């Protein structure tokens, strides 16, 4: 059955013609190039290199950034791209999120003119892959206490420390690494091959299997002085990157949910039990109606957030709500879709279990579900509840 994206309220009619063309381009790419290969990629635990090439050729990397060879699309278009990519697989969307929002964006926003000219065109074309090193083995939700540090050695910086859970790490030519310089968090550009830098791949994941996840290890890693990002000091630097990536996830989760719904609707219509399609039974209809309801709400949340992103009237808490809600319902929808598929739902013939396992990561990365609740809690009450230490 060809994919039919659930759009009950016709939300996509609010997109511009250009945004719809971008949507169709990415949707076709996912249908033709990604879905036929995704299960093998998961089994092999690789991110197929031809997807990197195709994303670069389509020109969607760093979608909302302008100049320096970047696409210059709207944030709405960026959201749509994330949604369509994640309809294929969260690992694919993760690649694009990390490349655009976490590696290109900090260079674009905080980098020097020389850094922008040097890195951005090659990253927009996909020739160079970027990664983003913030999380450490012992500092996930609490990045402010990171251990990784940089020292000014006169003619170079010396980095020491380790990062973990870094998407694209092993395949990246460019790593944006956040480290403390004289106690202040700063962004550094570390390149593959820099002395004292290694990026071993983390193995054994049951989630995001078609995505490369790595550690970044800095052992007296020497980098030239011109590799520090001049702006973006303190946590504001990495957090502004995360805002953009989380925004993309709010859209991406809708795509994963749409994929699960589409499969569940088709399956329920054709699976006969007790002589009738299971879609004709009230319990199944109730599930499908709930999925439709939650996807529609998530779509409206994502779309209105996009409008606010493009208008510049958003606050970080808006993004937290959408990321948290949309991933949450996508995961519930994946589980419910698995239920509708019965035992078949666990097979790789269907996308369900893959999306479900992926979404467990998506729920956790880029600010866990609970952390986003705390961000909202602080917004509502004015009292931060992240730590007892004030």
């Amino acid at each position, binding site marked *: 059955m060809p994919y039919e994206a659930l759009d009950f309220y016709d939300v996509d009619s609010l997109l511009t*013609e250009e945004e719809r063309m971008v949507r169709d381009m990415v949707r076709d790419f996912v249908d033709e190039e990604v879905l036929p290969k995704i299960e093998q990629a998961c089994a092999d635990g690789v991110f197929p290199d031809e997807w990197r090439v195709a994303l670069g050729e389509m020109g969607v990397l760093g979608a909302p950034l302008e100049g320096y060879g970047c696409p210059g699309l709207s944030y709405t278009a960026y959201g749509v791209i994330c949604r369509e990519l994640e309809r294929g697989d969260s690992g694919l969307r993760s690649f694009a999120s990390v490349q655009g929002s976490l590696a290109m964006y900090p260079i674009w926003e905080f980098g020097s003119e020389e850094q922008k000219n040097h890195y951005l065109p090659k990253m927009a074309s996909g020739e160079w892959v970027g990664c983003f090193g913030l999380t450490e083995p012992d500092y996930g939700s609490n990045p402010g206490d990171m251990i990784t540090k940089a020292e000014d050695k006169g003619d170079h910086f010396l980095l020491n420390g380790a990062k973990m859970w870094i998407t694209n790490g092993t395949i990246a030519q460019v790593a944006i690494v956040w480290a403390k310089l004289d106690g202040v968090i700063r962004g550094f550009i570390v390149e593959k091959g820099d002395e004292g830098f290694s990026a071993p791949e983390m193995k054994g994941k049951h989630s995001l299997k078609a995505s490369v996840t790595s550690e970044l290890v800095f052992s007296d890693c020497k980098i030239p002085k011109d590799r520090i990002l001049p702006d973006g000091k303190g946590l504001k630097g990495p957090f502004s990157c995360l805002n953009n990536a989380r925004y993309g996830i709010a859209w991406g989760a809708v795509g994963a949910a749409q994929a699960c719904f589409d499969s569940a609707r088709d399956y329920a219509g054709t699976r006969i039990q007790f002589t009738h399609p299971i879609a004709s039974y009230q319990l199944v209809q109730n599930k499908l109606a709930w999925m439709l309801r939650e996807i529609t709400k998530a779509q409206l949340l994502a779309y209105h957030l996009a409008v606010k992103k493009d208008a510049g009237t958003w606050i970080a808490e808006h993004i937290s709500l959408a990321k948290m809600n949309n991933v949450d319902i996508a995961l519930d929808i994946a589980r419910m879709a698995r239920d509708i598929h019965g035992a078949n739902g666990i097979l790789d013939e269907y996308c369900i279990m893959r999306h479900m396992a992926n979404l467990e990561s998506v729920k956790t990365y880029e600010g866990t579900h609970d952390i986003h609740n705390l961000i909202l809690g602080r917004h509502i009450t004015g009292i931060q509840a992240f730590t007892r230490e004030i």
Partner: protein
Amino acid sequence: MTIAVLLKQVPDTTAKITVSGGRVDESAVSKWSMSPYDEYALESALQLKDSGGEDIVVITAGPARCEKLLRDAAAVGADNLVHVLVENIGDLDSTQVQALLAAAVTNSGAEVVFCGKQAADTNAGSTGPGVAELLGAACVTLVSKVSADGDGYSALRPSAAGSERVAVSAPCVFAFDKGRTEMRRPNVRGIMMAKKKPIETLTAGDLGVDLGAASVTIISHSPPAEKPPGQKFEGADSVSTVVGKLRDEANVI
């Protein structure tokens, strides 16, 4: 040299087709797409453009919805977009549509025309030869590849012995069968440029075409007959019955 590529917007092959009141209900078509053989024609023209710098004008006849088709073509590299606006395209017969397309080709200045061998909805297969007749142009049908050859073109098409290469010079029309490469995917840059491209919208009157009355009228459309339900046999006892049916009814063994 300018190549005119004739494109038709048809219901997507995945779209559900419903018939109401003896006519295909166009308003119920969820997705319209470029007719697949036209895609091969366009891709082949784009390849010639890549190697020889030809200018591509894409021409379609149909209602306002067809504008998307032209933008999609522009996004992959078409240079000029011509829309022959006909709201009631379904009421025209093939010769009337050919008259419009041939006039639009002449108007564009193109002497070489690429089109699909047939459209995915009507499957009439008359556009290429019909337009060629009106233009007084050579027509090569069922081509899979066209390349520049001196001042003219050479086209690959099937023959009784395998395949044959046909050399023609302009004016000429090539009607495409399945080509060697699928139509390229657009990219963001192409999409953004497509948005800015003007569409030349022309009517039959603008083209000086007097459509007259259709010589062929469609009495009614009807959906294909529903397939009879499948038959199910269980157990070893039914083997001889199944074999009998496969031999005598299905004629497959």
